[in-house]
């Protein structure tokens, strides 16, 4: 009896395995994928593996160019890349997190998508799930012969980029926020976050003065030197604003002005760039203690901050701040119109786009050599004579571009992300901006001007900086 049971169980299992194996082989779940089991398996690589395909590609119109490359993209004004047999690829390797943060990573992919349209390249996204994945993921891109540029998105990938770039001297690499000077094939793209953070810090502090709040807040991600630039810039901005208020009106600012200098900014490093729940948990006590606005310096954690604001808004029946939050990287004003007072835009997209453009134009290594490997994008910066701004505070004019980013995210996920129609969002953001008194916006413009012409010097605390000495001053 038991023998029969055992035998039949095994028989059923074997049959199941065979059925699924064969079925899996012959049922093509995606008819567009071109997967044809009869013809063999083409993995798209010319890597010496026998995939069962004839080596001579078909050429029906007889123009000497294989069919699959007839539609080879040509870019006006640019030399054909490598004879343009295949569209060149760029790989964008993101840190833990990846798409969907509506800020840092999404901005990188946005830049890659724009490069796809303009230069005919194909972007491949690779998302790391742990720190151990950086090297193999970068290597994965480097091993693909069609890949011309590998972009590492995030400071934490720096060491991995240096290692892989040494192993693959023929490939070009770019690392956003990384610091890898002196390598011929690595472009480190840095931003002047301290300047932008100073502007939103001043904005937050003046809002606190206007609405009589004692604090402003900041939710930070993993404590990396790049974030120190944000932190010190932000705190410096608060103090600039307090000084400006006193100079202009002759009295200390109300609300936040009465708070001791070192305690004006409630902040914490959450140790994550992906767990939005930490953003929520950190933001709740900040608002509770009287922060007028919380600055999001942790990518997707802004969505957690947004939840905390929404909860307050629902409880108090508000349809516009205060309380506010301040967006980062992208223009995040559209995420919750009326409650995101402004965003510190860090144009990661322009960095990725620039690197791709230089590779396609063939000037990548010249530019790397010219700048010693470090390209800085910031307020009024230029690269090889072309001006590229990398840092700014969001304005109404930027909004449409980023509402489109939300629409794109909706398309990808198939769920609602935009909080209303584009025109509704625009109207709500405009109404909120008008509700904030003009003198505040004027003060921010004044600071922007001072930063641009160099009268105001925002301290930059980055790699190897003694952060504690700054914290002794600013809290």
């Amino acid at each position, binding site marked *: 009896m038991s023998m029969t049971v055992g035998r039949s169980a095994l028989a059923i299992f074997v049959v*199941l395995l065979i059925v699924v194996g064969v079925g*899996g082989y012959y049922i093509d779940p995606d008819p567009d994928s071109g997967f044809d089991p009869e013809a063999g398996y083409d*993995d798209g690589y010319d890597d010496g593996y026998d995939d069962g395909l004839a080596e001579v590609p078909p050429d029906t119109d007889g123009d000497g160019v294989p069919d699959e490359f007839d539609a080879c993209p040509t870019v006006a004004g640019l030399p054909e890349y490598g004879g343009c047999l295949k569209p060149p690829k760029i790989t964008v390797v993101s840190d*833990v997190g990846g798409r969907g943060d509506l800020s840092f990573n999404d901005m990188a992919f946005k830049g890659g998508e724009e490069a796809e349209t303009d230069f005919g390249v194909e972007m491949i996204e690779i998302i790391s*799930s742990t720190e151990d994945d950086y090297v*193999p993921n970068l290597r*994965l891109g480097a091993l693909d012969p069609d890949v011309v540029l590998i972009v590492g998105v995030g400071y934490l990938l720096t060491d991995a980029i240096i*290692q892989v770039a040494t192993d693959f001297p023929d490939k070009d690499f770019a690392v956003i926020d990384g610091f890898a000077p002196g390598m011929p094939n690595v472009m480190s793209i840095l931003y002047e976050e301290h300047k932008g953070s100073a502007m939103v810090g001043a904005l937050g502090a003046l809002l606190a003065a206007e609405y009589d709040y004692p604090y402003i807040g900041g939710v930070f991600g993993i404590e990396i*030197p790049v974030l120190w630039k944000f932190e010190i810039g932000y705190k410096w901005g608060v103090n600039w604003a307090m000084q400006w208020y006193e100079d202009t009106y002759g009295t200390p600012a109300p609300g936040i002005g009465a708070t001791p200098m070192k305690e004006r900014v409630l902040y914490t490093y959450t*140790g994550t760039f992906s767990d939005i729940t930490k953003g929520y948990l950190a933001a709740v006590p900040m608002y509770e203690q009287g922060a007028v606005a919380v600055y999001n310096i942790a990518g997707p954690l802004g969505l957690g901050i947004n939840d905390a604001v929404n909860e307050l808004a629902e409880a108090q029946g508000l349809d516009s701040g205060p309380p506010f939050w301040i967006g980062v990287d992208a223009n995040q004003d559209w995420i919750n119109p009326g409650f995101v007072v402004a965003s510190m835009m860090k144009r990661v997209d322009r960095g990725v786009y620039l690197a791709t453009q230089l590779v396609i134009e063939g000037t990548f290594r010249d530019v790397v050599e010219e700048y010693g490997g470090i390209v800085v994008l910031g307020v009024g910066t230029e690269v090889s004579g072309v001006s590229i701004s990398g840092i700014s505070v969001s304005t109404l004019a930027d909004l449409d571009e980023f509402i489109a980013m939300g629409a794109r995210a909706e398309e990808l996920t198939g769920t609602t992300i935009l909080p209303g129609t584009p025109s509704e969002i625009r109207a709500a953001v405009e109404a909120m901006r008008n509700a904030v008194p003009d003198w505040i916006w004027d003060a921010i413009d004044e600071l922007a001007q001072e930063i641009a012409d160099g009268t105001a010097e925002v301290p930059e605390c980055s790699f190897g900086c003694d952060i504690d000495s700054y914290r002794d001053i600013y809290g």
Partner: protein
Amino acid sequence: MSERLWSTLRSVAPPVVAIAVGLFVGALLMLSFGFDPVRGYVALFRGSYGSPEAWMESLAFSTPLMVTAITFAVGMSAGLFNICAEGHMYMGAAGAIAVGGMVSLPPGLHLVAATAAAMLVGGLWALPAALLKMWRGVHEVVSTIMFNWIAFWFVLYLIRFHITDPGRAERATPAMITARYPVLGGSLTGVIFVVIAFCVAIYFLLWHTGLGYELRLAGDNPDAARYAGVSFRRVILLTFLIGGLAAGLAGGSQILGRPPSWTVYATLGNLLNLGFQGIGVALIGRNHPIGAIFAAVFFGGLAHGGRFMEYEVGVSAEMVGAINGIIVIALALPEILRIVKRVRAVKE
């Protein structure tokens, strides 16, 4: 067929069946979301074992798993559910950094000292749970889960305040050049030899010494062990100590033997879950130290090959984690073993 071959086959059969079940459920998952499982698995296994470079990376991923598996396997041999590898590993990593990154020693000696420190700190961290078990009868699953989390927050605290890399708050001080294992290629370093040697040493300890016999007897047949006068307290202490040393070595291997960072991040991201994955590895390796080596190579291959599946087919690389889970669940069922036994009976 010879009895010896049969007994080997019999012990290998359940993991093989469990792996088949895991891959099968994984294939169903892929099919149900419109991915092609054949392409997926071809990409996965070609990516993990298809070339020498792939082997290097896969072995690098499997190195820490071999020793975290030992922690669980030795525990199981003695009849204890020692799931504390996670916490010991964190502590071991901190120990490796304390000596490998903060103390200057001559080359050679430095490497030995840093490795020993990793193992020792891991071993020390095993003491509280062992003592709780010995004197208060606290179940080890409960206490080790608590100690894992205490270690997690404690090591984060250490990284922030005591073993910090000045100027780079996101990580601890990296191991100095003198405390790094030589790179063999890719991410693979010489630490794998130390790890394998450790596994073999544990094999000899368990199967060829009196102490190991006592330990196994306590696990296989507690009543017989009691009659034979085996000291259970000694067995518990020994088991936890070996577990701690092994997991400490795993933590050390991620610091002293893993380019390019040679350190631990303030998220513990390069350590997280390696201890728990070790449980699966140990189970597939039939709780045998040598079996753990082979099982770890399989798991390491999955961990590395997953990215190729994502690159070529679009299946999220983390799917291999789900396959691991299914394999472990399947291995929890002793009925699998029974089916295999019946098949053998049928054959004869």
